[in-house]
Structures are given as structure tokens and as C-alpha cells.
């Protein structure tokens, strides 16, 4: 089953989303900030990264840009999770190289759909 890296600083969101993903049969690894997210992507080679955008140390946009600039991690799809349903955040996420985005609160079926599309394409 696919391995998902969830980069999320909020404990409740992390707990919730990781448990729901595990329940769906995914293997979930977790990073708490943007910098460790980038690091763990290199180390763990997940099949997909779910990246919160407002993160400490290194924000999600910056982290996504680094992942997409690195030939090793470039091909790993990144879904941006934007806290606000803000058009600007969405655009910024896509401009940073994210492959897709979803807005919080997570609607699980919608997010799963996006994940599956990207995992199939990979």
C-alpha cells in the first residue's frame, strides 16, 4: 500500500488525518514542520506528500518548492492543504509546484479522490 508523508503542525489535525488515512489502508509517516518534511521526503521516499501550507520553520510553499527543485524528490506528487479557502493561497501553492491542493476542513472522500488520481498517475 502507498506510503504517505503528512506534514502538519497542528496536533489534532495530524492525529485525525493520519488515523483516517491509516484506516483507509495507507502507510503514514509524519513530519511536524516544513524543514523536517523536506528531509523526510528524501529519507522516506513516500509515494505522496500531504503538505499543510502554514508550517513552522519552513512554510509549505517553500518546502514544496524545495521538493520540486530537487531531482530526487521532484517526481513525488505533493498535495497542498490550505488552511483558508483563499484563492491566493491556492494559486501560490500551484505556483510553488504543488500538483494539487485541497482546503481544510478536509472532506475525506474528496481528498482521497485527489490522492488516488495522483498515485495512479505516478
Amino acid at each position: 500500500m502507498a506510503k504517505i508523508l503528512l506534514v502538519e503542525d497542528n496536533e489534532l489535525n495530524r492525529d485525525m488525518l493520519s488515523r483516517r488515512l491509516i484506516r483507509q489502508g495507507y502507510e503514514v509517516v509524519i513530519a511536524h514542520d516544513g524543514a523536517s518534511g523536506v528531509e523526510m521526503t528524501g529519507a522516506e521516499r513516500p509515494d505522496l506528500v500531504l503538505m499543510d501550507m502554514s508550517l513552522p520553520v519552513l512554510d509549505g510553499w517553500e518546502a514544496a518548492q524545495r521538493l520540486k527543485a530537487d531531482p530526487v524528490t521532484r517526481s513525488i506528487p505533493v498535495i497542498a492543504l490550505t488552511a483558508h479557502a483563499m484563492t491566493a493561497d491556492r494559486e501560490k501553492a500551484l505556483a510553488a509546484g504543488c500538483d494539487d491542493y485541497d482546503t481544510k476542513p478536509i472532506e475525506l472522500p474528496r481528498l482521497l479522490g485527489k490522492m488516488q488520481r495522483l498515485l495512479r498517475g505516478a
Partner: protein
Amino acid sequence: MRSVEQLERRLEREKRARKAAEAIAEEKTREIYDTNARLQELNNSLEELVRQRTTELAAARDEAVRASQAKSDFLASMSHELRTPLNAIIGYSEMLLEEPDDLMRPELRPDLQKIRGAGKHLLGLINDILDLSKIEAGKMDLFFEAFDLAALLSEVSATVEPLVAKNGNSFELRHEPDLGTMSSDQTKIRQILLNLLSNATKFTTQGRITLSARRLIGNRVEFEVSDTGIGMTGDQLAAIFQPFSQADASTTRNYGGTGLGLAITQQFCRMLGGEVIADSVYGKGSTFTVTVPEVYTYASAPQPSQLGRQRGAIGTVLVVDDEREGTRMLAEPLSQEGYRVLTAAGGTDGLRLAREEKPDAIILDVINPDFDGWTILRLLKTDAELCDIPVILVTMLGERDMGFALGAAEHLTKPINPKELLQLLARVQRPATAPDILVVDDDQSTRDMLRRMLVREGWTVREAASGTEGLQQLAKATPAVMLLDLMMPEVDGFEVLRVVRQTAAWRDLPVVIVTSKDLSRYELEWLRGHAMDVLQKGAYSRSELIAAVRAMVEAARRTPSRLVPG
């Protein structure tokens, strides 16, 4: 002796008179000085008062700006703070609902559903309040993309169908089969429609809710949401778009909702250069009609005073024909082509519209009721303001020479061949000044090819061989349109576009992306939100490029502030 005494007396009198005069002069001088001093003092205190008042006003203004900013910031952060725990409430209740029955007592499910439902409702409220405050603060972003209308409508229908069914209502979606695409902010249009539909479902029971869409002459798309619900009285109707003004306070209790949805809907419509109109019969139902430009251009930006005066993308044509059928035959191919079409049934109206709207061309049927076409033509051609507008005459065979003699530019005979009509129109419509086009591409041969194509159309061309050079050229003078390559060393097209859109002077500059890059879906989306058109090298035709540039030149020509030739 006597005369000496006399002289002495006189001299004495004269001396005293002189001294008296000097004393009076001194007194007067002092008076004048005092008066001046008082005036000066008054003036100073007035100036001081004005200065003080100005400072107070400036402080009050700064304070108001700060307060407004603080309010926006507070709302934004507050809504974030509220959303985070809400996410947890909704998420954990959903997680529990996802538990299999053997792990959870099934009778708890309805309660969990209530928790989740209340959480989602609260989230909706927070979103609405945030939206409205963002609109108020001018911080609501727009994101433009081309999207398929029919797909959007069926997606919206699917979303509302469960809502519609709840009150035992039936739902109908009505539109022509080939609605095609429109270019606007899809999210906003979706939200407009969802707001109106959820509003309709709230106030309708055992009735019918209809969503319909159609294209209007003049490049506009009309959406209509109608219901057979409780309707509104005139007073209710008048206040319907005011925030927090649901028909009355009891409405909120009975029907729920924030009372913000329609206010937001109206604001969104305006932002997209359109409008929303409500109509209702009390006890019978309500109809909301939304009209938005099919292509959002920067020129059609939301200036409320100009609503309803949207210009066509590629030009305005006035059709003067007394027959309805004849008008339709002429107007339809034109509006399909992207012209904004004005129609007048008679010469009086025709001349009035010509003066008011200054169309780019006039199509005139010579048989007109109140005065004949020849007279109209003569009046048009002898009016200093109108004589430059090309006129295409629609005549019977054999009358063309007379038309040319009176100054008609072109000539058509009935029955109208739409293709011929469009060709004629393109031929007579020439821009007054040669607009300049900036071509930014690092490839010499591409630049040469583009230059040849553009110059042939009567435009002047400036070239830039890199992104940096492109920005330098922009800084020299803003062109009418910029053609931009994406793949360039150092500063690439994306970067140029980003800078252009972040610079106030260039924010509205029409940009056409000409690229051979294989674009990802998201690159394409991003580009469509920032550029006017994206043409892939090898995949577009010469005429497509020319048409795209012409449309932008036309749009720019209509926005006087942007008319900066050279």
C-alpha cells in the same frame, strides 16, 4: 510791530497745527498697527485652528483605517482560530461515523450526525463572515480560468440535489446543449449559484426549483434560479441584498442561514463585472437572475457605475434595421463572433445610439420607416463626430453605387451571408492609431515570424530577446499587448508575468503566452489566471493569434487610461 506779533501768532498757530497733525498721524499709525496685529493674531489662530483640525481629521482617518485593518485582521485570524477547533469537531465526528458498527453503538450515529451538521453549519457562517469582510476590505481575490459551462451547471446541480429533495421539491436544470465555455472566476460563479439555489430550497416546500442558463447578445451569460416558494413582499424584496437582512428576524429561526448569502452573491456578481436581480411574487415564488460577462477582461473590471455598459471583446456594432427578423439575422453571427451588438429599429434611435455609444461600425438597412436609410447615411456622414464610423449598407441589388457615393464603406445584399458580413466588418474596422505589440521571446526566428504577422495587420512591433529585456521595454512604454514566451534563460516568462501582474501600471496589460513548453494542467491554470490567452507553438493558427491580439487591442482601445501608444 503789529505785523511781527501777527506773524508770530500765525507761526505759533502753524506750529501747533503741525504738531496736532503729527499727533493725529501717530495715533492713526498706532491704530493701523493695532488693527494689523489683531488681524495677524486672528489669522494665526485661524491657521492654528485649521492645522489642529487637519491633524485631528488625519488622526481620525488613520484611526479609522487602522480600525478597519484591525477588524479585517481580527476577522481573518479569528476565523482561522475558530476553524481549527471546528476542523477537529467535524473531523472527529466523521471519524466516529466511519467506525464500523461492531465498534460503535449504532444508536449514537444520529447524535454524531447532529454534531457534524452543527459544526458544518457553524463553518458556513464563519466562511460567510470572512468572505464579506474580505470583500469589504477589498481583499477578495479573483482567479480567472476558462471552464465548461455545462459541466459547472451539472456539478452545481449534483451538489444541491440532496438539499432540494429534503423539502420534497423537484429540481430542473435547463440550458441549450452547446453552452460552451466561459472565462471567469469559476469558484465565485459556483458559489453564486449554490447560494441562490440553497436560498431557493430554504423557502420552497413541495415545489419546483429551476436552474437555467443561456447566452445573451453582447457576450454575457445569464443564470436564472427560480422557485415556487413563499416569495417575498415588495419591502422584503427591496432589502434582500442587504447583509443581515433576511426577510424578517423570524425567517432566520424558521429557515436558518446567516442572511449573508445574498449579500455575498451580489458582491461576487459585481466583482465579476455582472449583476444580480431579484424578482418575486408574494406567495408564488422568487426568481434571481445573474448576468455576468462571458469573458472577464480587465477592462470590464468591477466599476459599479459602469455596470451594464460592458464593452464587447472585439468591438461594438450597431445594427439599424426595422425588421426584427432582419436584425436577428445580422446580430446573431456578430455576437457569436464576439462583437457587442446594439440594435435600433429606426433612424432616430439609430442616430441616438451612434452618438451615445460610438460603435466601431454601423450596419444599416436602407429601408427604414421613419426616415429612409439614405437619409440616415447622409446624416451619419455629415456629423463630425460620427463620420469616421464605417457604415456597411444592406441594400437591394443595384443600389450600391449610390451607397458608396454617400460614403458607405461596404455594401451587402440580402439575403445576408454571415461569413461575408464578418469579413466585411473585419475589413472596415481599423484601429485609429497603430497599437504597439511587445514580443518577448529569446528565439530570433520566432520573433521574426511574429513580427511579420503583426506588422501585416498594421500594428507596430517592439522586440525583446529575454525576460529582462522585456521588462526594460515595458518600463520604457506600456505596449497595447505583450506576446510572451515562457522558456527563456534567467528571467523566464512565468517570472515576467508575475512581475507584470504585481506592478500596478501593468496589472491590466493584456498578455498572450506563446509557448512550446508542455504545460501541466496547473501551469495552464495559473497562466490562464494571469494572462489573457495561452497559445501553444505549433498548435495555433496565424488567424487565432491575430484574433486574440486584435481582441485585446480592441479592449485596450476602449479603456482610455490604457491607451499609451509609444
